[in-house]
């Protein structure tokens, strides 16, 4: 919104109540413009909320002591062009109060961890987007923070780079750190997160453990067996069947599960798996977004 004298204020976030448990990987999901980055900027003290409060590691989020124990990777990070990766980390290390006796070793360890050791002396202006992302992750974990905030950490990375970041986040969790990261790439969130929150148009749409959100829906099961034919008795159960190479899969109501097993046994077909049909995180996400749009349409 553009005013004559100053920009008209725009409400970026609705009241947002969220708790992140210690030691978990928490995914903050939402489409572009949902308010993810604004939330993170507020927590980092870069923008000020009109109302509300937050506590990080048991202290007020504005407490300078808190900042010594958190790491932050902004979205599409950009650093001082004229510094090398080593100089950058040395600068940030000093700002974070990393003692000089440990700093050099700590920098070497972190550079090794993000795969920048070979180019630690190269100025950052010569870095590719992916390399800058690695430097960004390095600066976020340099001072061994208890809690790290990553804003779109997979953005701009190739599949290998994304895998490495995922591994790094899992390692952080194993080290007892808490990881809070925002993303709109749902497969990453599904693979990594203990819990997720979904935000849309500045409003929280859902929060919970990934298993809970993707729990069994519609009371259906997926039956997989070896073969390329569908027994007539299976068809009679009303199953949706799909062939995939040498295996067949059928989706049918949970109540028909025993009948399906009997049908396969009668036809002497080898049963491979029976699993409850879970909704994907993507389906849940889309459903939440569609629901919010419908609600908005009804109320307007």
């Amino acid at each position, binding site marked *: 919104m553009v005013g004559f004298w100053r920009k008209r204020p725009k409400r970026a976030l609705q009241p947002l109540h969220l708790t992140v448990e210690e030691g978990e990987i928490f995914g903050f999901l939402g489409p572009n413009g949902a308010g993810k980055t604004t939330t993170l900027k507020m927590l980092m003290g*870069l923008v000020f909320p009109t109302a509300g409060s937050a506590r990080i590691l048991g202290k007020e989020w504005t407490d300078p002591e808190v900042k010594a124990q958190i790491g932050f990777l902004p979205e599409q990070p*950009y650093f001082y062009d*004229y510094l090398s990766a080593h100089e950058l980390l040395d*600068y940030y290390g*000093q*700002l974070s109060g990393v003692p000089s006796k440990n700093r050099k070793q700590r920098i070497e360890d972190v550079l090794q961890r993000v795969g920048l050791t070979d180019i630690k002396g190269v100025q950052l202006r010569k870095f590719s987007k992916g390399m800058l992302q690695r430097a960004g992750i390095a*600066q976020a974990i340099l001072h061994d923070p208890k809690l790290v905030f990553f804003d779109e950490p997979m953005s701009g990375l190739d599949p290998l780079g994304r895998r490495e970041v995922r591994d790094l986040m899992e390692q952080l969790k194993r080290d007892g750190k808490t990881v809070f990261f925002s993303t709109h790439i749902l497969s990453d969130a599904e693979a990594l997160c203990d819990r997720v929150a979904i935000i849309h148009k500045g409003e929280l749409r859902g929060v919970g453990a990934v298993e809970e959100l993707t729990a069994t829906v519609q009371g259906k099961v997926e039956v997989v067996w070896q073969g390329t034919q569908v027994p007539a008795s299976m068809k009679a159960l009303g199953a949706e069947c799909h062939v995939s190479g040498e295996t067949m899969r059928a989706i049918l109501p949970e109540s028909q599960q025993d009948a399906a097993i009997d049908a396969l046994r009668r036809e002497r077909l080898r049963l491979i798996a029976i699993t409850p049909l879970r909704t994907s995180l993507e389906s849940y996400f889309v459903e939440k977004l569609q629901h919010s749009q419908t609600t908005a349409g009804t109320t307007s």
Partner: protein
Amino acid sequence: MNARIVQIAFNTFREAVRDRVLYNLIAFALLLSGAAIFVGQISIEIERLVVINLGLTAVSLFGVVIAIFIGIGLVSKEIEKRTLYTVLSRPVRRWEFIVGKFLGLAGTLVVNTFFMAIGVFGALLYVAHKFSGPDSLIFVALYFIVLQFLIICSLALLFSSFSSPLLSAVFAFSLFVIGSFADDLRGFATLTSGITRWIATGAAYLVPNFSALNIVSAVAHEQPIGAQLVLQNTLYALFYTAMALSGAVLIFERRNLK
């Protein structure tokens, strides 16, 4: 001084030193000193006067240009490039960032002035073949020039804490020009009456008094400079700088970094 401020200042200094624009400006200053030598050679008996006048004016102008053009980008560039996010998400207070940036730029200007001063003294030695007693006053003139730089750096930071780089440059440069005529402005105020007098007097005392800090002509003419003026100018420059920096901090503390 706390370590974070020192680090921010050092990083600012390092950025300026690695920035080739700074080297170009030093080269230009040396070039101007060369021109001073040329003018000195074609003048009769006034080589020293011309070299000091031209040399110190060049030191002042090049320093002002550097102070304004680097000063206005110190905050805005860090916001634009988002480098500020990773600094302020650490245990760095916003006022520490502003003070560190100021000290870094001030340090850059002192080093820059030092090298340009070598050029001026070199040119003086070239035309006069020896230094004389009154030449030591050049140090006082250089000191006053550095005081000017402190004020301009703080003003550039103040403007850049709420305005765009272009507007900040316009504001800072305008204040430098107006401040260079501060004495005339004060004289003008005494000639007016009523509300005009109030406004003119207020404006005259609000703008930085750069004319009091400009003793280039007096030094060139070997006029004595009193210790009282040195003390007065020092206190004035420090007070003005502190006020402008406090303004920058007050604005920056409340600014949302979008």
